[in-house]
């Protein structure tokens, strides 16, 4: 009976200490959570390039890249220091990113691969084969969903590059090059205003 009473008192003390600790932690971390502002610095234009790209298909997708590392040895249940490990299913560190991106296919119409030949009664247009033009990613479209433990930039960068590859491979499943070709034909036909016989060819 005495032991049971002591157990209850200990549990009550533990709960009170835990609750106070939790409130102290949320108070301190809450004030530290205010978003830090970057300093005003100049943006430098490093290059300006004239291009001629006709994007005809846009594929929008998002991928989740998850990296988890577990402890090598099992947690010792009798060691209070290992209890959090047990609670956290032996996860040593984890980084989960949600990456949203756009993939664009279309025609890169440089001078060498694009020609128009006009005669009295016909118009022949030679276009390059559709290709992957853009993989549009940016920090505003990347979310760090879960971060446990310490992760360095190189590891995060590798995960982002993996996400980029996954986006491209997802896009490839939709045979977007063919779709880009169809859309390019449709677009050019709507732009060409002539009574001549039109022939459009991809090379």
């Amino acid at each position, binding site marked *: 009976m005495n032991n049971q009473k002591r157990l209850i008192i200990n549990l009550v003390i533990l709960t009170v200490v835990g609750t106070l600790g939790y409130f102290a932690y949320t108070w301190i971390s809450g004030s530290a959570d205010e978003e830090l502002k*970057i300093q005003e610095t100049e943006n430098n234009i490093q290059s300006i390039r004239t*291009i001629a*790209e006709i994007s005809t298909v*846009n594929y*929008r997708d*998002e991928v989740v890249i998850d990296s988890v590392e577990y402890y090598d040895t099992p947690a010792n249940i009798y060691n209070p220091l290992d*209890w959090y490990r047990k*609670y956290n299913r032996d996860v040593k560190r984890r980084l989960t990113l949600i990456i949203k991106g756009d993939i664009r296919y279309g025609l890169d119409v440089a001078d060498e691969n694009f020609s128009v030949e006009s005669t009295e009664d016909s118009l022949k247009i030679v276009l390059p084969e559709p290709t992957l033009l853009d993989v549009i990613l940016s920090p505003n479209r990347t979310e760090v969903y879960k971060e446990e433990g310490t992760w360095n930039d190189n590891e995060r960068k590798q995960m982002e590059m993996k996400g980029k590859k996954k986006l491209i491979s997802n896009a490839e499943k939709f045979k977007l090059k063919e779709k880009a070709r169809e859309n390019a034909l449709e677009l050019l036909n709507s732009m060409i*205003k002539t009574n001549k016989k039109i022939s459009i060819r991809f090379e």
Partner: protein
Amino acid sequence: MKPILYTVFCTLFLLACEEKNPLPEVDAGDVRNIGLLSTTEYTVGKVIVVNDSAVEWYEFGDRKILISCHAKVKAGIDLKELKDGAIKVVGNTIKIELPPSKITSFTMDPGDIHTEMEDITGFRNVFTQEDKNAFMRQGEESIRDELDNTNILKDAEDNAVAFLVDFYTQQGFEKVIVKRESDKQ
């Protein structure tokens, strides 16, 4: 008996508090038909500077970070905005009403972002990847806001005009007149 009872109770207590944090559902891919003519590409560089000095009584030490990044920005016109009445042919002359130029793509590739310097003193925490992503988001916003002060849209419009003049001249038109959005104002 008592230690075992304690251990069993605490283990059950901890396991009962397991956080349910499943991975988010991912939207299926969305394919759209577009018709963007990109004619200009700017590469913009920026150094993101964050200086987090201690302000609260419990903070001891400073945190500083410098991140360099590049954004590739393309601009041009939306050919789908060339409506039916936008292209008129009179004999050997073609008149085109050019839609306004706009930013067609903005990319900050992860490979173009580097932490150049990170300095943490005292008992301050290291910058997490979430912190760094938040700084890069602000950097992206800053680059986007500054684009209005560059000539990117003007360059894109000039190059689009040159492209269309060349395109229609090669088709046999003797005169190609391109009416810009800015001409209307």
